[in-house]
């Protein structure tokens, strides 16, 4: 004898299932926004203070905002670890399938990476504008996909990919810990960091990126190639995340 759960009038079951992803995504974005809305002003403030401090001593010769891109990577990384470990179990206990939760986590990760990329882009544009007005050279310290502060599209792509890489790395490590426990989770940390390391290497934007390039003495491939390669790497990393989480046991809490 089969019984069906009552379906609200007007909603097909397909639509009802999609609602779960939306609910979880909104929730995750909401959680991150609570902190982000303070981080953004704080980041701007710090950059401005640093700029004022340096320029009072000697003239500025390079981009400050470029360095401001470092700490968001690690914040996103930490957030991903924390949110995956807490919200996936809660979602499942509210009757959401793991696959739906993973979809929500993925969507949230992409959206949040794009939001932070937009934040970085705005900062670069503003910085370039200020530097041009004050006659300072806006030199970029490490190689990028973008040439200067106004090269918005490649800039946005690069930051999105980098931030997404750290989000996926965080998700992997959070997933490893949740699924495999403290010991094996710790052993798997290097594996979890691979996506971040790989994308940093590919886009050679990190501190070791330039060194890696020189060490391997390869000439830098064109931007579109790098973007595609990054997307491929991140897709593979996401696939691993999916495999780790799609049938993970939700722990007993006793």
């Amino acid at each position: 004898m089969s019984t069906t759960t009552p379906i609200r009038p007007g909603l097909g079951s397909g639509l009802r299932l999609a609602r779960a992803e939306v609910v979880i995504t909104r929730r995750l974005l909401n959680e991150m926004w609570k902190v982000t809305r303070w981080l953004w002003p704080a980041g701007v403030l710090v950059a401005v203070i640093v700029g004022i401090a340096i320029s009072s001593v000697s003239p500025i010769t390079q981009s400050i905002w470029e360095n401001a891109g470092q700490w968001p990577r690690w914040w996103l990384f930490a957030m991903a670890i924390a949110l995956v470990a807490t919200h996936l179990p809660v979602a499942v206990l509210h009757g959401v399938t793991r696959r739906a939760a993973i979809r929500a986590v993925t969507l949230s990760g992409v959206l949040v990476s794009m939001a932070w990329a937009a934040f970085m882009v705005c900062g670069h544009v503003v910085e370039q504008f200020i530097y041009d007005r004050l006659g300072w050279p806006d030199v970029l310290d490490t190689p990028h996909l973008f040439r200067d502060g106004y090269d918005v599209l490649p800039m946005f792509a690069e930051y999105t990919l980098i931030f997404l890489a750290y989000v996926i790395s965080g998700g992997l490590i959070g997933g490893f810990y949740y699924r495999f426990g403290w010991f094996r989770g710790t052993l798997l940390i290097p594996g979890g960091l691979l996506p971040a390391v790989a994308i940093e290497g590919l886009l050679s934007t990190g501190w070791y990126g330039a060194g890696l390039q020189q060490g391997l003495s390869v000439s830098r491939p064109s931007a579109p190639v790098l973007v595609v390669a990054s997307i491929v790497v991140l897709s593979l990393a996401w696939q691993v995340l999916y495999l780790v989480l799609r049938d993970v046991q939700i722990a007993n809490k006793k």
Partner: protein
Amino acid sequence: MTGFQVQAVDLSINYGNTVAVDRIGFTLEPGKIHGLLGRNGSGKTTLLSVLAGLRRPTTGRVLVDGVDPFENARVMAGTCLIRESGDLIATDRVGRVLDFAAALRPDWDADFAAQLIARFGLSLDKKASALSRGQRSALGVVLGLAARSPLTMLDEVYLGMDAPTRYAFYDELLADYVEHPRTIILSSHLIDEIERLFEGVLVLHEGRVLVNDDADAMRGRGASVTGPADVVDQFVATLIVDGVRALGAQRLGSTKQVSIFGDVDSDTRLQARALGLEIGSMPLQDLFVHLTDSGREILR
């Protein structure tokens, strides 16, 4: 009748090398309140985990509403497991916890939830981490009842509650069940007060099914025979021949009380009284203690 049917077929669940549930099979009829009883470590919580899709069985299978619940969106959305620890995000306020559940549970009744919140005296503004154990349990009950899930499972939710809260819980549960029948599993090792709510009883012991039966039938099967020791022994011996089992005995001087398990018809009862023996019924709690104490497997 709405509510999911629950079935286990040759089900085993292991944790590493520990066998938590050992090749069990049973069917729980839909739309009834079932008591899932067993001592700590008997496999109750593990079984509920599998029913809720939290993990897969090791061997065998479970069927909820006829399908494997693991990662089945329809069945999982219609299955609600509330655990004693309360699976909440610590930083959430009570209001947010309710909103989250409301968004994810297809049959959520917001008015009923508000009514229950008021009944249990919970504040919407309090953070989940700031709730006392009893309040957390009460919130768990609100989530479990207001969801109106076709399969609702409450795992030891009332252990942290004080007496008035417990009675409020029983009342609300019954009243809502009567209005909106669904399959409800109440799991506990303490059943004194709550056993009256059961229509079916499933007893697990050391990973095996000891009993799966109608609750009233079970209640009719436990009895105690009290009287002079030799008379009691003789009488019980005749019962044992008829298939009744003796679960345990107590002596006080020359008086003996033997707990028995089996069908005792009214003629036999009259017989006992004629012999000067007293036959008393046994509450489910005592019956349960006896059955699991002796660790015997009582065949259905």
